[in-house]
C-alpha cells in the first residue's frame, strides 16, 4: 500500500523528523520504502532517509508491504501529522 505526503516542516526532513519517522516504523516487520524524486530509500534506515535531503514543500511517497503494513502506515501517518512534519496529499 502507498500514501503520499507533502513536507511542511520548515527545515525539511532533517535529523529530528527523520529520527521520529524511522523510530516509528522500525518495530514493524513489513518492508517500507520512502520514494522521493524517483529514488527509493529504506525507511528503516536513518542514513538512507537523511541522505535523500528532502526539503520543505517536497512531495514524498511511503510504500509498505507485509503482514502489518496497514498498522505501520497508520502509525507513520500519525507521527508525520502530529509532529507537524507534513500533511497528507
Amino acid at each position, binding site marked *: 500500500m502507498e500514501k503520499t505526503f507533502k513536507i511542511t516542516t520548515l527545515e525539511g526532513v532533517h*535529523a*529530528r523528523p527523520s529520527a521520529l519517522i524511522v523510530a516509528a516504523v*522500525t518495530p514493524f516487520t513489513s518492508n517500507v520504502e520512502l520514494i522521493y524524486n524517483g529514488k527509493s530509500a529504506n525507511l528503516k534506515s536513518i542514513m538512507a532517509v*537523511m541522505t535523500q535531503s528532502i526539503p520543505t514543500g517536497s512531495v514524498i511517497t511511503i510504500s509498505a508491504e507485509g503482514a502489518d503494513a496497514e498498522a505501520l502506515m497508520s502509525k507513520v501517518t500519525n507521527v508525520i501529522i502530529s509532529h507537524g512534519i507534513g500533511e497528507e496529499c
Partner: protein
Amino acid sequence: MLEINGIAVSNGIAIANAYCLVEPTLSFEKVEISEIDAEIERLKDAVAKTKLELEVIHESAMLKFGEEKAGIFSAHLLLLEDPEMFSAIVGKIKQQVNAEFALDEVSTMYINLFESMESDYMKERAADIRDVAKRLLAHLLHIELPDYSRLSTEVIIVAEDLTPSMTAQLDKQYVKGIVTNIGGRTSHSAILARSMEIPAVVGTKTATKNIKHGTSVIVDGKSGKVIVDATEEVKEFYLTAQKDFEQEGQLLHPYISLPSVSADGHHVKIVGNIGTPEDIEAIVTNGGDGVGLFRTEFLYMDRQELPNEEEQFTAYKKVLEKMEGKPTVIRTLDIGGDKELPYLNLANEMNPFLGYRAIRLCLDQQHIFRNQLRSLLRASVYGNLKIMFPMIATLDEFREAKKLLLEEQQKLIDNGIPVSEKMEIGMMVETPSAAIIADLFAKEADFLSIGTNDLIQYTFAADRMNERVSYLYQPYHPAILRLVKMVIDAAHCNGKWVGMCGEMAGDEVAIPILLALGLDEFSMSASSILSARSRIARLSKEKLMPHMESILSLTTAKEVEEYVKNILI
C-alpha cells in the same frame, strides 16, 4: 605529594579522586580473517554493548537535561542500529577483513557522503556518525572511553580544557572540582564553574600530564593550588579550611533577606548572572535582587539546530516567573568570539572577537534574531523583563535592533497576543566606542549595562584568552575606571540607570569605587551576591566620593589597588 599552581577561578575547596578526561587513541590494522561468522558475531557483540551504553547515557541525559538535549542520543541509537549501515559492514567482513577495518571503511564512506551534501546542516551530521563509529570501534578494541555524563562517584575533573557546553553538562552531584591546563578567570568554563559553585583552578599547563586518573587531588579554588597525593597532614589542613569556608558562608547567611544598602543608606541592586533557567535557583537561595544578565546563548549551544520559538519562550517564561516581578535583564544572542554554534557553519575568522558576532550576526541573520525577539516579547507578560542588545558599537546598530524589536511587538499585538507595555530596552556597553558616546546612547536606550570582560579586552586591545597578554586584563586601570565613570555620568544625566555585569562588579577592590561612582546595579555570579552585599553594607558612599578624584588621577592599576586596600577598606 605534588603541588601544581594555576589560576583560581571559582572559590571553595574540593577533595576527591581525579577523573581524567583524556581521549584514548583507537588504532587498529587491517587484518585478513578466515572466520567470517565469528567476526560478524564480534561486530554484533560490539553493537549490543554500544547500544546498552547509549541507552544508559540517554536515560541519564533525560533526567538531567530533559528530552530536547537528550534527543541527540536517541538519534545516535538509530544510527547505531541502522540496517543499511549494518549490512554494509557485514558485506565488507564477508570479503575477509576484520570488523574494525570494515566499520572504518563503511563509516568513512557515510561521513564523506554527508560532508559532501549541500546543506550545511547535513554536513554537521557527519560528526554524529563519527561519534557513533568511535564508540563502536572502542568496544571492538575493548578500550573504555571516558564519559563525564555517567559519573557515579565524587570526582575532580582533570582536562586540557572544558568547552562551555561540556561544563554545562557536568553533574554537580558528582563533580566536586575542576582542574584544567588552559583558560583564565574570564574563560567561559570559569564563569560557569562559579555559577555552579564548583571550586576550579585553570591554566595549570601541566595538570593532565601530572595527575593520574584515580589519584587523590585537592583543589584550592582560593589560592589556585592543586595538590596531588597529599600527605595526611596537608589533607587535615584542607579539611579544616573546607570547614572554615562553609562557616564563612554561615556568617553571610543573614544577608540573604537584608536589602542591598550602604552604611549611609544608599540603595543599590545586587543581582545575578545566569546561563540557563536552572541557574535561577542559586540567585533565589542567595537572595539576589534580580537577574542582571541572562546569557541566552546557552539555549542555543550543545544542540544540533536552532531552538524554536516555543522552547525559548518556555525558558524565558520560567526565569521571569521564578523572579516574581524582580527586574530580569535578558541579553539577546551573543554568539561568536569563543562561543561557537557549529550548526550555523560560520567561517573561521582571523580575529573572532573583532569579527562577526553578537548583534552584528543578529542584524545580518534576522530570522534568528526575530525568532528570539518574539519569544522574549511573548514571555514579557510573565514578569519584569528588560531586554538588552550585546556588542553595540554604533547608534545605527542600536536603532536597527530596536526597530526590529518594535516591528515584532507590533505584529504580536496585531495578532492579539499580549505583550508587556513597560518593558525597558537597553544595551551593553562593552566596546570603547559605546562608552565614549554613552551620552548619545543614553538618550535612546532605557538603561546601559557595562560588560567589563569585553570592555577591558577591547580597551587594551588584548585577547583575554591569550595567556601571554593576560597581564593587560586590568580592571582597576584608570583607563577603565574613567570609561566607567563616563558611562555612569552620561546615563544619570539622562535619567537612566546603569548596571555592570562583568566580573568586576563582584570584585572586592572595585566595589567601593563603583559604589562611589554611582553604579545602580551590580550583577555577578550568584555565589558572590552575599559577600558583595555585606561589603556594601560596611561602606559609606558619602565618605568614599571625595576620594574619586585622587583615584582617577592615579597612573597604574597597582596604585589604584593599593589606594583602595590601604585607605578605603
